[in-house]
């Protein structure tokens, strides 16, 4: 079975991160992510990485949930660790046949991997601790362009329908003896199914648009949401942003 992309599955838990006001949370963590990603000092990145893990722990999200999502991302990050040491020129540590492993390469690989993992890890306390629709509303309140907010909203709403529809198609095919595989025939059939899915999505999009027009939609989308920032939200936000800035100040002062 295909799984629904449920990033907000554990949004109803309780933790300091869950209680953090969504708008402040988004701003603070975006700041921190950019700050870490833009650092070039290994020691500071390592500090950033450790702090990211602290935030992750503070969010009390179940370990298996985090691991499951991290696994997918690792596929893109690990290659850096493996390839960089061989390809970046610099001082040799050791060599396998004619291929040199360099100190600079290793450092660079670790740097990139740490930054990437920090960014991904921070996504969890930022996004997985709030219902996704609340995050969307927070973005709207933060004056993110309406068109982006709407795109996110519809993606979120219809990705489930899309998954269901693909599932139904697959089951219909399998119940007529089709086996998922990599033969030319299987690929062609999958291709057809995807084509079908596109046509259906197109038709659905038309009907959804009609339904929206029927209820007065004229292009921009208003949402109703109430957020209340309290002192602790301001404090936490300021502390995180201050830390993000500090990393760069220290880096610069070096």
């Amino acid at each position, binding site marked *: 079975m295909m799984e629904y992309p449920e990033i907000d599955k554990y949004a109803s838990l309780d933790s300091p991160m869950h209680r953090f006001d969504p708008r402040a949370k988004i701003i603070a963590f975006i700041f921190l992510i950019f700050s870490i990603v833009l650092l070039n000092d290994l020691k500071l990145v390592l500090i950033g990485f450790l702090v990211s893990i602290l935030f992750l722990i503070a969010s009390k999200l179940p370990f298996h949930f985090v691991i499951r999502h991290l696994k997918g991302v690792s596929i893109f990050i690990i290659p850096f660790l493996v390839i960089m040491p061989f390809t970046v020129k610099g001082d040799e540590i050791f060599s396998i046949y004619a291929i040199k492993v360099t100190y600079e390469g290793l450092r660079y690989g670790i740097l990139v991997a740490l930054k990437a993992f920090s960014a991904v890890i921070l996504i969890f306390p930022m996004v997985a601790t709030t*219902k996704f629709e609340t995050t969307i509303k927070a973005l709207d309140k933060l004056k993110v362009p309406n068109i982006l907010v709407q795109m996110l909203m519809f993606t979120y709403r219809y990705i489930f329908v899309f998954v269901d529809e693909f599932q139904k198609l697959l089951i219909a095919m399998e119940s007529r003896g089709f086996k998922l595989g990599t033969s030319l025939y299987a690929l062609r059939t999958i291709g057809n199914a995807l084509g079908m899915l596109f046509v259906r999505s197109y038709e659905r999009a038309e009907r959804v648009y009609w339904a929206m027009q029927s209820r007065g939609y004229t292009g921009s989308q208003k949402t109703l949401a109430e957020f209340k920032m309290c002192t602790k939200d301001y404090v936490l936000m300021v502390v995180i942003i201050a830390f993000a800035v500090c990393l760069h100040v220290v880096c610069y002062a070096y």
Partner: protein
Amino acid sequence: MKKEAISVKNLTYTHPDGTKALEDASLEVYEGERIAIVGPNGAGKTTFLLHLNGILRGSDGQVEVFGKSVDKENKEEIIKEVGIVFQDPDDQLFMPTLFDDLAFGPLNMGLKGDKVRERVEKTILSLGLMGYENRCPHHLSGGEKKKASLAAVMSMEPRILVLDEPTANLDPKSRAELIKIVNDLNEREGITVIMATHDVNAVPAIADRVFVLNKKVIAEGTTQEIFSDGALMKANNLEVPDVFKLFEVLRCFGYNCEELPLSIDEAIEHLMRTAEVNGGHIHLHIHEHTHDEVKKLRSEYEHH
């Protein structure tokens, strides 16, 4: 004098790909009426309904809502009067939560936060959706989704409610509940109800008047008139309610009735009356034509 809620004159519509979906369709609906539009698959029912609030516009003909012609200029006004519940709730419920979906229409109408919340709350209460406000539409059951779709439209407080195949894919309990809700809305608030449906067994319970649509409006009448017209039903691949069929069979066994009942309630009433007249008994028997008549009836029904 009955007030006209909707008047459609000579409506013609061709889909962009050249399919002629409507041809010279005309009908009138009066305020407070409950109307069923029946017709075979592909008869143009959905296409027709989409004209009632100006989503689609015919190449020819005219649609009027409470005397106002439906056109580009007064779209906003018309949308407030005519609420359409689409067949597939997944098309209708496009917001992340039920609350947002119910607030969508009122917000677009320009209502302010508190007024919107008031509307949403009222609709939730009146449709019995308490506790569902923050649920994601995707995780609702079929019956709940249907009710939610209806709520999403009712929060705009339209005077005309249009439903496309409202009972399709519902289990019996949800179906009965939906029928009751719609009837209540009609009775309590005087909302005019227009629905397209395949579900002939639901028609007697939910409509006063029936239109048969097959590209154009072929016939119009009370449920009794329409379902009694065997030739009409057959020509348009339509079924009659099961109760109606049963009493046609009973008639072959000598049961005496002029107006065939269409629903269980009517059937009970009819049986009671017949029994009373005949001293507490109902008399059925096989006479010389019974076999032939039953055979004829069966062959008629088997055509469907």
